């Protein structure tokens, strides 16, 4: 065996200490194949070695949780014998290198995570981050990345037959060389038919199903664990190519094969492919796995053991069948025209043993390989923050013009150009799709319930104060659910950060996780799984800390409550009140960004207790049928929320009269939380509910035909036609892309 040079070890992104640990585990030097196997399993992407210590701080248990972190997806109980399996995962690095396939395979990967649990995927949402589309050096590239990512998601999801029902899309310069593509998926299964990724039963056959293995995606997991350099643009072959039709076949075949009762355990081959699925299933089952690579269906000739073990070819699954009942499983896969081959068996020695051309090319104990990756308590200092605390002078010349600027800004403008490319209705469960309500709502035909789901992140806030900002994110997700009348039952998170080896970046991660833990505990939403994406840096420039949270809630199946005003002459009420804000806490707002092109100070202040009471009160108002529309105040504050409420089919606007001591800019555009705008025919029945929960519910005006007018203490602040504003709001994204 040729000795492994320090250079070779370094190119596998293993430190000397990590290498020594490998030698210790094996009791000898690893072979080249073994080195490759360790390098992917111990990559940041697969092992969470920098984040795991801190992830333990998150609450993971709750009355609804059936399966917490550690499996392919988290599982929550949704009643009447059914569960929902859901998770979010990033595909950031591949989407920069090859936007279309990078995003497409991101969707494919998370869908497999869901159906490998025995759940049929019924919804997808995406959190996307790109560099600005406006005139900068990189805008042409940013547009190309956006268009590629969106069509990649559309291509995969639409063909597979899962509706893409919601998400968010934000533009910041920090994503110029490092876009983020976080994909959330949710599926439904019977509670007693959940499948786990465990290899059990010595002698049981290990079966490979799905696409043939090629040389694509080798070292994808390690690539996702390093910063981007000029060199990584050469890594295009590391990105996999997706085949959504094959995935659809795999879905149907797997769900049907599971019904035979002959499947013991199953895991998809995602990051680190065959390596990860074998050793993790063995480790979870406390067993060994022996595989013969010559039996693995291969798309190319002359593949080495190293390449076969590390390939990330898409649309593949590994399963353990009951010995003697393989044929029942094979029959199903034949029906769907898929390869299914026995490639090995479960053993009792706890080893991952890999044979190729009659020789043993790797022999590694499963448990330490899968679970004993080094755990780092990386030093963390003060979170990186380069924005000033002091505010500039803020004085608007024309508030209506400011509102127009905000409605045309990338973060706030209508994303219809994006979501209209997604089939958001397939499976006929979508009660509220993109931009219809504050959360996406799907009915569950199987058990008569409905699920609401939402994704949120705000890197601007996080850059200013990661701990408080992450609490705000969790609060906003829960508020989005309350607004549609749903009770949050579980959450998933995607932590997108820069290089954790820099203490000031690590500090962002730690504070964000701690803030998330506190808020999730407070709102009783356990995190049931998620994903960490570190090293989001290009040429030394890191992204702003971008934790994305997805929360799932339960509600009744009924015509959903939308965000748009529906009738003129209704009372407009601001539940939670006008809120308070000072100029320091105005620095992270969309107003500061889009109108002033500035960033300073702190994110809005959050009173968790008040927030919870507002949510409870609003949920009660919705359940009582008092609200005709409901929309929470977030990006762009009160003025933007009012405009958004007016963009319904009937163009119902509102006449608003306020009485506040806040400056007009703050009053209209501050982003303080705990506020929900509702329209109602029965304000006198809304008020007692608010009072009972100790929250304000101000009658601030009346809905009216076609205009939005806002006055404060008699002074006119805004006066605009709904159609004029709508044109700006709906045309902005296309205008930016048409350049």
């Amino acid at each position, binding site marked *: 065996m040729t000795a492994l040079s320090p250079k070779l070890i370094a190119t596998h992104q293993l430190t000397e200490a990590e290498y020594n640990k490998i030698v210790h585990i094996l009791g000898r030097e690893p072979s080249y194949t073994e080195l490759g196997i360790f390098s992917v399993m111990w990559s940041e992407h697969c092992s969470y070695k920098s984040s795991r210590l801190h992830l333990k701080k998150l609450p993971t248990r709750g009355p609804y949780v059936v399966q917490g972190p550690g499996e392919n997806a988290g599982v929550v109980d949704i009643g009447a014998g059914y569960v929902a399996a859901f998770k979010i995962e990033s595909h950031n690095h591949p989407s920069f290198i090859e936007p279309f396939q990078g995003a497409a395979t991101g969707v494919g990967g998370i869908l497999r995570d869901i159906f490998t649990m025995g759940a049929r995927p019924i919804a997808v949402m995406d959190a996307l981050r790109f560099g600005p589309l406006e005139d900068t050096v990189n805008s042409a590239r940013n547009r190309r990345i956006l268009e590629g990512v969106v069509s990649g998601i559309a291509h995969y999801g639409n*063909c597979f037959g899962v509706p893409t029902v919601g998400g968010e899309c934000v533009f910041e310069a920090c994503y110029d060389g490092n876009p983020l593509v976080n994909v959330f998926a949710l599926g439904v299964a019977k509670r007693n038919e959940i499948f786990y990724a465990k290899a059990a039963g010595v002698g049981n056959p290990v079966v490979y199903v799905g696409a043939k293995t090629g040389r694509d995606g080798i070292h994808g997991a390690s690539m996702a664990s390093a910063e981007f350099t000029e060199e990584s643009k050469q890594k295009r072959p590391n990105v996999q190519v997706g085949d959504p039709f094959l995935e659809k076949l795999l879905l149907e075949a797997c769900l049907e094969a599971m019904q035979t009762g002959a499947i013991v355990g199953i895991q998809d081959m995602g990051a680190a492919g065959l390596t990860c699925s074998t050793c993790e299933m063995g480790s979870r089952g406390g067993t060994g796995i022996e595989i013969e690579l010559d039996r693995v269906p291969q798309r190319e000739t002359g593949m080495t053991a190293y390449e076969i073990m590390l390939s990330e070819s898409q649309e593949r699954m590994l399963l353990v069948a009951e010995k003697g009942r393989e044929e029942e499983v094979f029959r199903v896969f034949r029906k769907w025209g898929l390869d299914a081959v026995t490639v090995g068996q479960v053993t009792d020695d706890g080893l991952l043993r890999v044979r190729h051309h009659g020789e043993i090319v790797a022999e590694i104990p499963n448990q330490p390989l899968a679970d004993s990756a080094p755990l780092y308590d990386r030093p963390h200092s003060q979170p990186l923050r380069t924005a000033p605390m002091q505010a500039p002078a803020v004085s608007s010349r024309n508030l209506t013009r400011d509102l127009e600027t905000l409605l045309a800004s990338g973060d706030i403008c209508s994303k219809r150009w994006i979501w209209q*490319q997604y089939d958001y*209705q397939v499976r006929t469960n979508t009660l509220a799709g993109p931009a219809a309500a504050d959360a996406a709502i799907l009915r569950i035909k199987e058990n008569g319930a409905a699920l609401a789901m939402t994704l949120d992140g705000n890197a601007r806030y996080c850059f200013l104060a990661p701990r408080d900002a992450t609490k705000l994110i969790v609060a906003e997700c829960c508020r989005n659910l309350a607004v549609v009348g749903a009770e949050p039952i579980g959450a998933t998170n995607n932590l997108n950060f820069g290089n954790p080896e820099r203490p000031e970046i690590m500090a962002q991660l730690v504070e964000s996780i701690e803030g998330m833990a506190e808020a999730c505990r407070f709102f009783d939403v356990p995190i049931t799984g998620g994903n960490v994406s570190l090293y989001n840096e290009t040429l030394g420039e890191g992204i702003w800390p971008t934790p994305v949270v997805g929360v799932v809630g339960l509600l009744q199946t009924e015509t959903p409550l939308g965000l748009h005003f529906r009738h003129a002459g209704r009372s407009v009420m601001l539940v939670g009140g006008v809120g308070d804000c000072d100029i320091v806490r105005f620095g992270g707002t969309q107003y500061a960004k889009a109108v002033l092109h500035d960033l300073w100070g702190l994110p809005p202040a959050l009173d968790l207790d008040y927030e919870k009471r507002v949510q409870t009160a609003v949920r009660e108002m919705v359940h009582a049928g008092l609200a005709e529309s409901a929309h929470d105040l977030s990006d762009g504050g009160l003025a933007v929320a009012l405009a958004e409420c007016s963009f319904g089919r009937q163009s119902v606007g509102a006449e608003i009269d306020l009485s506040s001591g806040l400056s007009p800019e703050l009053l209209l555009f501050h982003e303080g939380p705990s506020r929900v705008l509702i329209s109602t025919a029965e304000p006198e029945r809304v008020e007692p509910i608010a009072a009972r929960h100790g929250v304000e519910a101000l009658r601030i005006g009346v809905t009216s035909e076609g205009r939005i007018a806002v006055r404060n203490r008699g002074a006119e602040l805004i006066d605009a036609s709904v159609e004029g504003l709508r044109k700006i709001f709906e045309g902005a994204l296309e205008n930016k892309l048409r350049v």
Partner: protein
Amino acid sequence: MKFGVVVFPGSNCDHDAWYAVRENLGEEAEFIWHDSRRLGAVDAVILPGGFAYGDYLRCGAIAKFSPVMEAVKRFAADGGLVLGICNGFQILVEAGLLPGALVRNAGLKFVCREVLLRTETAESPFTGAAAAGQVLRIPVAHGEGCYVADERTLDELEAEGRVVFRYIDNPNGSVRDIAGVLNAARNVIGMMPHPERASDPLMGSTDGLLIFRSMVSALAHA
């Protein structure tokens, strides 16, 4: 009344059609697997939306060779009612059961949204329950739904009243705003919009039910 819903491996609106027929329409429905050479005892056939065999080639180009399509052709030749929705329309066109072709949307992008359709004729087993000129609100979701045909065919379709639906707000560039057409015998229809997605009050529109109801009443009076 029993509807047969054909299932190609890449169909993904098969269950939606099945559900609409059973739960919203209240009739029987069963699935027909793509490699089956017989349809069984069904009164009408639905070719649902989706991506029959992946459609990496022209949409429906492979599906037309599938065993089940032989049976569908015989069924149609015998006067049976065949409803092709979206991918089902593409397959019917490829299979030569309907004239014209469906090409890439004018906007070159997949488009999913609600459209307004004008019912151009009530003289068909698929629109008998509607009034001529009635406007229906039904969603579309497709990347290749731009209907094209040569001028002579188009004139003929119009002269014979075989343009069933026209878009009021054309989402894909279809010539003469055509959203759905009939065969000469008027027992086969292809349409890009999805009536099964507009069959449940919870989904925001029940205009699609009109089409299924028309079929039921046509069969009852046959």
